[in-house]
């Protein structure tokens, strides 16, 4: 096996890493096991659930469907690198304000996809939001409050002062 160990240099959340990996090591396992960044989750094995979504060189991808060696030289952002110090990213704030998560397992991937979506278009329609996160499955929320969370975050990123869940709950 030693002959198959390759060296990769990957920047994650602004920190450069130099690591030895097997070719078969999936990027998500590299992040979780080698770098102990366990916020990125594994939910399926066929690239359907999106819990493992990270941003590689500016684009949301599924880190369970990518070998770490493919990311050699890349710059990666994970959920751990989203907040600016103590200040939450507007998408994180939206998920908190609008009850956009329950068990929280899909949430890191959902947040990364939402960030990628809003960075391209910070005023998406409901349909555009739903289309933009179709690669992330959630079993808890029925997506209702996730859509609200992304709408909240979009408004925040546009400089507005959105309202959270208390504005919508039923009587």
């Amino acid at each position: 096996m030693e002959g198959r160990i390759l060296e990769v240099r990957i920047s994650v959340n602004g920190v450069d890493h130099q690591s030895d990996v097997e070719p078969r090591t999936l990027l998500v396992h590299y992040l979780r096991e080698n770098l102990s960044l366990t916020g990125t989750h594994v939910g399926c094995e066929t690239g359907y659930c999106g819990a493992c979504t990270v941003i590689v060189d500016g684009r949301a991808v599924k880190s369970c469907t990518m070998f770490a060696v493919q990311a050699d030289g890349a710059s990666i952002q994970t959920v751990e690198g989203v907040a600016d110090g103590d200040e939450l990213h507007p998408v994180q704030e939206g998920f908190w304000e609008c009850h956009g998560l329950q068990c929280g397992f899909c949430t890191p991937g959902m947040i990364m996809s939402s960030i990628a979506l809003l960075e391209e278009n910070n005023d998406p329609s409901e349909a555009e939001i739903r289309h933009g996160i179709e690669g992330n499955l959630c079993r808890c929320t029925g997506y209702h409050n996730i859509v609200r969370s992304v709408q909240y975050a979009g408004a925040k990123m546009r400089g507005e002062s959105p309202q959270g869940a208390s504005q919508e709950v039923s009587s």
Partner: protein
Amino acid sequence: MSTTSVMGGVVRRKEDPSLIQGKGTYVDDIKRHRELATAFVRSPFAAAAINSVDASAALALEGVHAVYTIDDVRHLGLNPAQVAVGTLRPFLADGVVHHVGEAVAMVVADDPYIAKDAADLVFVDYEPKDAVVDLKEAYADTVQVHDGISNTLLTWAGNAWWEGVIDLPDPSPGIQEAKERDDTVVVSLEMVNQRLIPTAIEPRAVLADWNSGYDSVELWSSSQIPHAVAGAIGMTFGIPSNKVRVVAPEVGGGFGLKLNVYPDEILCCYASRALGRPVRWTETRREASVASIQGRGWIGTSTITGTRDGKILGYELDAICDMGAYTHNFTVAIPLLGLFVAPGQYDIPTSYALHCVVTNKPTTDAYRGAGRPEAAYYLERIIDAFAREIGMDPADVRKANYWKPDQFPVTTQIGLTMDTGDYATNLDSLLERVGYEDLKAKRDAARAEGRLLGIGLSTYVEVCGFGPSALAGLGFSWAGYGLPTAFNGSGVVRVQPDGTCTVTIGTGPSGQGHETTWAQIVSDGLGIVMDNIEVQHGDSLDSPVGVGTFGSRSLAVDGTATYEATTRVKEKAAIIAGHLLEAAPEDVQFQDGGAHVAGSPDRSVAWAQIAESAYQPHTLPEGVEGGLESSVVFSPPNATWPFGSHLALVEVDPETGDVDLLEYWATDDCGNVINPMIVDGQVHGGIAQGVAQALFEEAIYDDVGNLLTSSLADYPLPAAENLPMFNLDRTVTPTDVNPLGVKGIGEAGTIGSAQTIVNAVVDAVSHLGVKHIDMPLRPKRVWQAIEDARK
């Protein structure tokens, strides 16, 4: 944040800041020094004898530490958490496999990649046998799944809870006579309530660490019932329960999937003890599909006999319920739960027979709703068919047969007591909000243009909040099965010396927001601000003895225990504060982070001062003990019976059968509400899972028992694009079985929704002659139904 009157209010969740930053700790995020990984060798056959297992090639692989088979673990006996009805699963297959995916051998290696490499090298010599897949064939018993055991384990039937026989009981008095009357209509449908795969997004995960010095074990498991897992481990290994710590940290969705004591939990403990190192197993998605429990799986016929003015004179349900190959914790109890609510909200004579059969498929057990969605489906579908047959509005038929508010508490036909209900008010509230008459006009106008719009309605009552020992115990002790209590709730409230508060509870969330809701209860009682209350759970040694989260029970039972503990802490704190303030305890009020004398807000002490005194006994009044905490175990006098009404508007593409869910409304009644934001969230998710059953999901097996839908590519969970926003509202009919007046909301959305969708789709195409379409209503089925009706 100074508000302390937080019960009933929207409060952002305490658990979220961690989860949204990737700091939540799920089992797979915990690392132990020198831990090993596991892979299971699983049967590719649904039924086969095992002639031999050869692990030599696997053991020769570098990095492999052990390969275990039943010969290594047979001495551990059987899983004590399996209720002793029917067919019990050995920890690893013992000479025979009974479903695809059954574990035959366990490989332990340095990492999961090597473990999988090694598992591929384990050679198992199988001798395939005939598999029993179809439910009617299973019931006919021509081929037995387990040698010498009838495929029909038992029949839950209408005139007794446990007949234990196959024969149908006599129908309830009057139904046969009603059928023979000239003025009655009899409507009958055979319907499938298909098998589902729960599919929590977090697969199950287990990490065991046996300490040979103390002969104790720690197990982290993605479980809804850590206490029961601990009980089963202690019993299996013969060690006392105080040497078993089972921790359920963050749990990434439960839905009943994680409400079992699984063989892998025991096996990882065994391997850790044997190898002297921590041992981990993380389920893959395919394993989640073939080796963990599934839900539903009924085929049955419902029949309504009634008059043309909508009076129902009899409801009959006769169904075969798929138990799968083995009976786990609650497998045979799931149809029983359905039986409890089989007559729904209606004052109608009922007859039912639910036949529990074993098949060569994975075990079924609780999946969100657990028996109650099935019951609601069979009842509410046939009521719709009956309404259509007699030409009455389905809402009017329902209202004509409801129990009336002044009839509560209602004793049901089988002797259960329904606590409170006001069904007609709830339904009317929904219909008014929807604008029912206008919606019907819109549907009819669209239909005149050739568009296929449909309106579907369902109401439901569920039974949850377990529960009273008498109901939960069914006459025997759960303690013998590793379940530590007869479904009691527990809560410990402790004010720390600095005036902050720690709450520990016997249940734990898998997304339901317990930390926030419980903090609201305590904050409301003690006036300690939310930020100063921490709620801990899920540790079988550090949490009070409890049961876990399932059956929409946590708030009604453990929440009540916490409420009572809060009250007791408050009573003692009033004595201490009164002493400090030189006032009578009954004049002390708690608010805004401290206590003050009623009418004199200036005469106040902060919680920190009260707590400081509590932990310095010499400062306390005579006869008052030090400390400030209370532990309460609560056993409710009854279960709770939430209810509600759901309505959907769908459009069917007449050319393709594609169903578009346009609008969804629900008015649920779960009694009092602690946090409406969280309650709404539970309903959203519940509806989504019911819609998923109605439109998308099905565990499909071929005729030799292969699961054809073992990945998410073939088992299509709805994505955001496939669902609409949900329009929710509530009525509030508090229960009288607990002081909070809360009923439970975890399953309501699921119980109310699947038949709402099917009723809507059938409504859209009924004028074409379609009477029923089995779920899931994939385009092909809807199109085929239209085609068949046209022919």
